[in-house]
């Protein structure tokens, strides 16, 4: 199995989720994160104190899926999260050794 981690722009979440549903991904976990990268954050000024954050709000999506499904997942995310502008984000794929569904104790691919 694979863990696909995608860092995307927040307003793309709905699109990505729909795209994933289409490739048959039923579950995922979402975290609000901050990203540093090429994309520059807004400059804020508070009574003359200027803060250029470099920190941009992002959404991290984590999906565990069967290894053979992973390429399609990656593709779906890449297609749906893409705006062509800097800061669209990254996808990382890691190996997962084991998966368990807490409710039933089912393991591995049946647990997803």
């Amino acid at each position, binding site marked *: 199995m694979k863990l696909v981690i995608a860092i995307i722009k927040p*307003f793309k979440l*709905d699109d990505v989720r729909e795209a994933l549903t289409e490739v048959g991904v039923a579950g995922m976990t979402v975290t609000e994160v901050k990203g540093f990268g090429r994309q520059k954050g*807004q*400059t*804020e*000024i*508070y009574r003359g104190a200027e803060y250029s954050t470099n920190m941009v709000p992002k959404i991290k999506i984590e999906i565990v899926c069967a290894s053979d499904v992973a390429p399609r997942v990656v593709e779906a995310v890449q297609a749906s999260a893409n705006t062509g502008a800097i800061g669209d984000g990254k996808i990382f794929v890691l190996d997962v050794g084991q998966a368990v569904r807490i409710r039933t104790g089912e393991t591995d691919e049946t647990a997803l």
Partner: protein
Amino acid sequence: MKLPTGLAIAAGTTFFAALPAWAQDAALQAPAAAAPAATVDKGDTAWMMISTVLVLAMILPGLALFYGGLARAKNMLSVMTQIGAVACLAMLIWVIYGYSLAFGPESALPSKFIAGFGKAFLAGVTPASQAATFTAGVEIPEYVFICFQMTFAAITIALVLGSVVERIKFSAVMLFALVWLTIVYFPIAHMVWATGGWFFDMGALDFAGGTVVHINAGVSALVLAMLIGKRIGYPTERMAPHSLTLTMVGTGLLWVGWFGFNAGSALEANGSAALAMINTFVATASAGLFWMLAERFSGHKGSALGFCSGIIAGLVAVTPAAGNSGPFGAIVLGAVASIVCYFAVTVLKPKLGYDDSLDAFGIHGVGGMVGAIGTAIVYAPSLGGPGAADYDMGAKLGVQLLAVVVTIAWAAIGTTIAFFIAKAVTGGRVSPEVEIEGLDLGEHGERAYNY
């Protein structure tokens, strides 16, 4: 001459709006001996000053919180700043020429619709100047009257913004406000509240500004929302209120402040103010609960936002009726307004498809109309209202309807003109990038929250 200043006219009779003179009260409170000149009672002055302060509290923080809580977090400061800044603008142009246009002396202009520039820059007003009340021989310092009315102008333009926040440019808001106050608010205020004004002379009942403030703001908001277009993502995207807690706080402050608005509109600390006060309590209480009941009867849960919406709908509806109804008429009026607004907001709006972000029309416009028309009904003595025994409800209904229709037309046309001027100069709407990222960062360079 309209507003007596300096030397008050002794024989000053009922001066402004549509209110029975509560002869019995006057009898109790007026000095026993014949008063050769109008006197100022410090109790009235105290009441009108605190009423003025209460109306300010309705704007900032009241309305700013009510509206702001309903917006998304990324637009919070934008909403609050737009409200605050137009209120400030309204105050400044009020003393420059607004007060004069609404309540100044007659001029070459058609005095049915507008006064003149004779009191521009508050010419001739001093701390000793006085303004009439509804009771002959009783006056209040003119500066107090000016301040009280100033807050009305300020809140009305702030209310309009509710339909277009989260996408309208700050600069567009400011320019729109300038034009709108000039061509819509000042004339309508004159027509309703000044002697010689059209609706005033018709005998339209509007105790505290249901027409001038709420119908006017609500209709303008609707037109403005349609002109500027929907928010990106509306109605499919999740746009839940970012803090109903703040909306609830704003609701409470609006209710609190509204006693200045409604009971203050008696212009005296007397039985009429007391009647306006009790009506403002019970109509609102009724409306708050009835919105929740309407939700239950529609198969949903009674909601906190429903409660708040009902409270506001009730306050709006009781505004023209405050001193023109008995408490039980007010309870019914609040309930009806609440239910009608509920359907306007949950059924009508989705059907018609316009994006009135914070339901400025659905609550202020619709509630205002229910109130304006309902006032003609609850005014009837048979329903516990203060109307005379020979009160002709049909005739009064006609008058109220006419005032409503003229206000709607005037507001719609004026708003359209003001919007196109604002759009031509400023562009009107923020870029899609700014709209998506939020107006706080895009327009003001700040975040509302940094936890």
